[in-house]
């Protein structure tokens, strides 16, 4: 009888597999990234090139675009596993589903949220944001995108196997994203008008903490409902 793997190493393998599958399609990971860049660049195109207007729009445009790009890639978390039957195997694992779900969310964040955090300041420069604003932008996105992946996972799990999922996820998830957006963009806005971003950032932290606790539970429940 062979030795059984420990919980940690099982979880590590789940994480590693999800990342590997995503990287096998590099275009997929690159896509979230480029979507963010392209979509953010659409706004200046639509509004003419008044630099003041751009600077004023920047926090909301960058944050909303980041939010939309995270949202667009949500279906990656579970949909393909559901379509090919792997999800059933995952639910039949000997490890608690909640933990496995958490790993899948982290994998999603590492490959969709994290890259945005890195590239956002670059785009911010194009919108004439100052150094302090850029820092706050990056920090708020770092916390915010993780919260987005966590919250989004619930929507992704609830809509599994339903047609026209893309848009339905959006409806379910966008209202829940709003606090993240308000505090995230609020932090940047605060810096723009010379105030401290601490208030907004700590509220963002609170949202993140709540999401970390509740989202895996809710997602696991949603998954077992979806497979019924």
């Amino acid at each position, binding site marked *: 009888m*062979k030795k059984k793997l420990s919980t940690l190493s099982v979880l590590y393998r789940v994480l590693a597999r999800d990342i590997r599958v995503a990287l*096998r*399609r590099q275009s997929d990971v690159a896509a979230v990234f480029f979507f963010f860049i392209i979509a953010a660049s659409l706004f200046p195109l639509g509004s003419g090139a008044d630099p003041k207007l751009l600077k004023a729009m920047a926090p909301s445009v960058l944050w909303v675009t980041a939010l939309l790009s995270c949202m667009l890639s949500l279906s990656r978390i579970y949909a393909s596993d559901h379509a090919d039957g792997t999800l059933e195997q995952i639910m039949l694992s*000997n490890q608690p589903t909640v933990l496995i779900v958490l790993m899948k969310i982290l994998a999603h964040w590492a490959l969709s949220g994290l890259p945005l955090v890195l590239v956002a300041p670059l785009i911010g420069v194009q919108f004439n944001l100052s150094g302090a604003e850029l820092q706050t932008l990056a920090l708020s996105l770092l916390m915010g995108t993780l919260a987005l992946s966590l919250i989004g996972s619930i929507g992704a799990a609830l809509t599994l196997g339903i047609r026209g999922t893309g848009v339905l996820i959006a409806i379910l998830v966008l209202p829940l994203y709003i606090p993240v957006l308000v505090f995230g963009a609020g932090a940047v806005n605060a810096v723009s008008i010379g105030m401290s971003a601490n208030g907004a950032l700590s509220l963002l932290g609170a949202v993140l903490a709540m999401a970390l606790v509740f989202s895996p539970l809710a997602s696991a429940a949603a998954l077992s409902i979806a497979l019924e």
Partner: protein
Amino acid sequence: MKFSTSNFELTANDLSAVRGERLLFKQLNFSLKNGTILYLQGANGTGKTTLLRMLCGLSKPYSGVINWCGNNINELAEDFHQNILYIGHLPSIKEDLTALENLQFSLALTGDSFDFAHACEVLKLLGLGKALHLPTRVLSQGQKRRVALARLWLQNLPLWILDEPFTALDVAATELLKQKIEHFANAGGVVVMTTHQEVLINAPNFVQLRLEDLDKPNHNLKN
């Protein structure tokens, strides 16, 4: 071959299943002990797949309970899951990964460690020697099924739940799988399976259970 629990029992008490407004089956009772093969029969749509998924705990019965060694499987949850090897009619493999990577992940899910050399051997035995490092997307239907079935050779779990395992397999692979199932049952494993193909399985404890179409007892397509 040895199992973590040397003696075990899967029992179903008064199971019934409802889908939409249809009663698929009711008052199903059975008890499976070491070494038993339960062969589920029935025409298309009589509820075989539904029953198998219930036995895994993936869906809940409309009424009745399923016990594993005397405990309700819903309460056991992960403690029950670590005993079952379920292969549904979907191949359950990720098309972007190679056969080996797929197997490694499947094994990790039940906490089994992965022996690379052994896995290669099994895949070669299954005729996939040339396809070890291809993404499974390009494999033919039958080859995909073989990758999924390789788990039967690699994992060491006492209860197999197989939904039409012979689908898409050619004659040689069918024979191989049949022998594997017989061997497993002889070693004390429990198998629950369905198939529409005629496969003659030799096992001391071979139980057949036929699901009938409750709506049309004298349907014109007699089966």
